């Protein structure tokens, strides 16, 4: 399962979705809003997505993970909208029989989501400036 969400991510509900009788391992990753980037103080983020394509690409990533790793259940949700410090921006969880596959699949999913899914992050800096972030990790001043 992959989804874009305008509402805060419900971690308890997502964890419940990973339950399976054959799952001896569950690995979850939470990407949270941090108070700095590239040496600048950050006090919030806004995310925008091309939702139709983002959900299609996210589902492709989940299917690719199923083909690569011996997993039971996969869930991944990415927020859009305005987020405050500490808010969860992205959540990826995997259950599997054994921990190696769960760790590997979870890492694969979050790395692919960051690289491929059409979602963009706007950083809001403490000095009042904001800008869209580009994937080289440098902040933008316009």
């Amino acid at each position, binding site marked *: 399962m992959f989804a874009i969400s305008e509402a805060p991510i419900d971690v308890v509900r997502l964890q419940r979705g990973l339950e399976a009788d054959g799952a001896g391992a569950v690995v979850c990753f939470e990407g949270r809003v941090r108070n700095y980037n590239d040496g600048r103080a950050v006090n919030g983020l806004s995310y*925008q997505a091309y939702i139709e394509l983002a959900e299609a690409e996210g589902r492709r990533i989940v299917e690719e993970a199923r083909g690569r790793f011996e997993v039971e259940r996969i869930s991944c949700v990415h927020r859009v909208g305005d987020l405050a410090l500490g808010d969860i921006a992205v959540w990826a969880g995997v259950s599997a029989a054994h921990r190696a596959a769960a760790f590997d699949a979870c890492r694969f999913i979050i790395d692919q989501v960051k690289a491929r899914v*059409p979602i963009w992050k706007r950083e809001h800096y403490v000095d009042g400036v904001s800008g869209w972030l580009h994937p080289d990790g440098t902040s933008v001043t316009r």
Partner: protein
Amino acid sequence: MNYRLLYFASLCDAAGCAEEQVASDALDVSTLYSELAVRHGFTFTPDRLRVAVNGAFTDWNRRLADNDEVVFLPPVSGG
């Protein structure tokens, strides 16, 4: 030909809108981007963008049909 353009992130800022209807003689996505880049002052070169037509990724040589929805995707920064 008429196209529906959606803009995201810094391309949305540069265009000053999230979507627009465009009447153009361009018959492929590459030519259409060149026109829009001039009109809106887009600074991305095509090698930094991906392109989607009607909700699916495609390539820069894609021929366009009337009323296609075209999206030029800036480098992504989710997560």
